[in-house]
């Protein structure tokens, strides 16, 4: 049936040459599992496009309704939580797939002449994908989305001369609000898809003009080729199915709760960016004061420019990685820095929730004795005694707290804080709680 239908169209549209162009593309050296990452990235892009379209059916890009509409998708729409999960984790998977695709291209020296333009187009596509990630992050309009975007836009503001203007353009004015949300939405679902579709088309066009690079052997003349279909198609399909199963499994297994609705007045909220921006977030902690622009834009700009022009910086014509120690060394150094920062950042992040149980018990003691009657923590409690929001930073000395709780006058003469009848256990727990109150890392 399907072949008769195909023949019917073929007689009219002359499809055979098209089929040959699409499927019989020669792969130098034969099909390989190492070549699947480009196809996987393309698949993930299509999945993001499809899930995004269906999310847009329910999403409302205004501060009044964005949060409620996402919650509606999560709780009321059949499979809504799953579609949102696919879109969320699909974004992460896409960043990973692009990373592996670039790594493979780098290792195989596949960016070398005549494929420089394909590499440069690829770097541009990567930047577009990161812009997708940044603009998409704001859309749920919860606290995380709001404050992470606030930080991101403020970083743009540190660029000299144009920074201020640039951040106003991004926000659509002075403050992050309705205008920001609607322009991020339009960029995310209208502008960027148009740009990336053209970019992907160009990337693939270049690929078909210059052909795949194949293995890194110098003796290219002796290489035999294999058609793209069926073996490379089969390999691509198997890995794509595996990747889909993985993303679907994560979307099914890991719920994606919204934090509270965005509250511009709640400045105590500490946002954490997506993992693929974490290394950058970590970097910003080490650079302060006048050097800050170095981390916020000079370094990223340099890295992007080096990546973009890499085929012209690395002029060694050899493709075998063993004979390219400098290129490989710099690539490795780059990965070490990125993953090192990512590792440190993840370690710091998980150090906070993995607090010892004494902190929770101490918190209960704090509530039991009504400490909040005088003290304030993150905006809650009275204001007659010192604010304890970051007392762990300002007074990190455990002994001081123990002594202070036994007799406030002994370390703080004139203090009107009463002596509370605390047991030894309560004393220790309360101190642990005090020391845990730090500025978020």
């Amino acid at each position: 049936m399907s072949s008769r239908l195909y023949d019917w169209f073929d007689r009219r549209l002359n499809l055979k040459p098209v089929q040959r162009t699409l499927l019989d593309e020669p792969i130098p050296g034969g099909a390989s599992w190492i070549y699947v990452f480009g196809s996987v990235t393309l698949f993930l892009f299509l999945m993001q496009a499809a899930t995004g379209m269906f999310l847009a059916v329910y999403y409302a890009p205004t501060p009044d309704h964005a949060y409620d509409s996402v919650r509606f998708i999560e709780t009321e729409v059949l499979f809504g939580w799953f579609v949102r999960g696919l879109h969320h984790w699909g974004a992460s998977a896409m960043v990973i797939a692009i990373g592996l695709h670039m790594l493979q291209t780098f290792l195989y020296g596949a960016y070398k002449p005549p494929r420089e333009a394909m590499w440069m187009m690829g770097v541009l596509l990567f930047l577009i994908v990161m812009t997708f990630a940044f603009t998409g992050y704001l859309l749920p309009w919860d606290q995380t989305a709001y404050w992470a975007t606030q930080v991101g836009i403020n970083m743009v503001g540190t660029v000299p001369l144009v920074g201020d203007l640039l951040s106003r353009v991004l926000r659509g004015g002075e403050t992050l609000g309705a205008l920001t949300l609607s322009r991020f939405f339009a960029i995310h679902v209208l502008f960027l898809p148009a740009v990336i579709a053209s970019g992907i088309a160009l990337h693939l066009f270049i690929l078909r003009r210059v052909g795949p690079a194949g293995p890194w052997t110098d003796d290219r003349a002796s290489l035999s080729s294999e058609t793209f279909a069926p073996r490379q198609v089969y390999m691509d399909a198997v890995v794509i199915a595996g990747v889909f199963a993985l993303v679907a499994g994560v979307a099914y297994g890991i719920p994606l709760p919204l934090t509270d609705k965005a509250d511009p007045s709640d400045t105590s909220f500490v946002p954490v960016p997506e993992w693929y921006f974490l290394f950058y977030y970590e970097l910003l902690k080490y650079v302060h004061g006048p050097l800050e622009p170095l981390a916020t834009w000079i370094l990223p700009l340099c890295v992007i420019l080096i990546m973009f022009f890499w085929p012209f910086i690395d002029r060694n014509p050899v493709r075998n990685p063993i004979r390219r120690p400098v290129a490989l060394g710099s690539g490795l150094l780059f990965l070490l820095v990125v993953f090192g920062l990512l590792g440190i950042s993840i370690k710091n992040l998980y150090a906070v929730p993995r607090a010892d149980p004494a902190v929770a018990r101490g918190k209960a003691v704090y509530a039991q004795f009504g400490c909040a009657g005088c003290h304030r923590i993150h905006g809650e409690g009275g204001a007659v005694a010192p604010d304890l929001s970051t007392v762990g930073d300002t007074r990190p000395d455990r002994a001081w707290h123990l002594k202070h709780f036994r007799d406030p006058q002994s370390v703080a003469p004139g203090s009107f804080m009463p002596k509370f009848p605390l047991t030894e256990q309560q004393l220790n727990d309360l101190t642990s709680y005090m020391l845990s109150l730090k500025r978020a890392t």
Partner: protein
Amino acid sequence: MNHSDDTHSSEGAGLSTPVGTRRTFFHWVTVAAAGFVGMGLAVPLLGSLISPALSRRKRDWVDVGGVAELPLGRPMQLDHVTTIRDGWMETKAQKAVWAVRRSESEVQVFSPICTHLGCGYRWDDGAQKFLCPCHGSSFDVNGRVTGGPAPRPLDVLPSKVEGGRLLVMYKDFKSGLTESVEL
């Protein structure tokens, strides 16, 4: 499906392509993978798209007043505020119903919309009838049609009495039909 005899394969000197059972194997694994991914995406995506069409609007019981305040046998219009859920939006709306107390604890509640073309009707004490101002339909105190073009009796809303309070579930009905069909 002519993969096994598809042996146009080795045209160029170095260009090869798998043939025979290997080709068939690659073909079917590809089809299976595509089917798996396609179904895995189609079911949730289309499911999410059509889901609102399948779910009935949730209705809540709304307290419209105390039963004791209703006179026996004389229809009263009761106003109340109801919450209307429209997707992710919730709005409050003023709704009215006509309630007729039949006995101590038995109350019948009518939708305030004429069954002809959807106008609001009123009770006429003198004529002892519900009169619709639009096209002259009239109904007796039990909701039966007594004149005019109305095709069916007044629509009865689900109601119950709990602790002396009258609770009503507000609904809309299609107008112009001989049967009462909920919207």
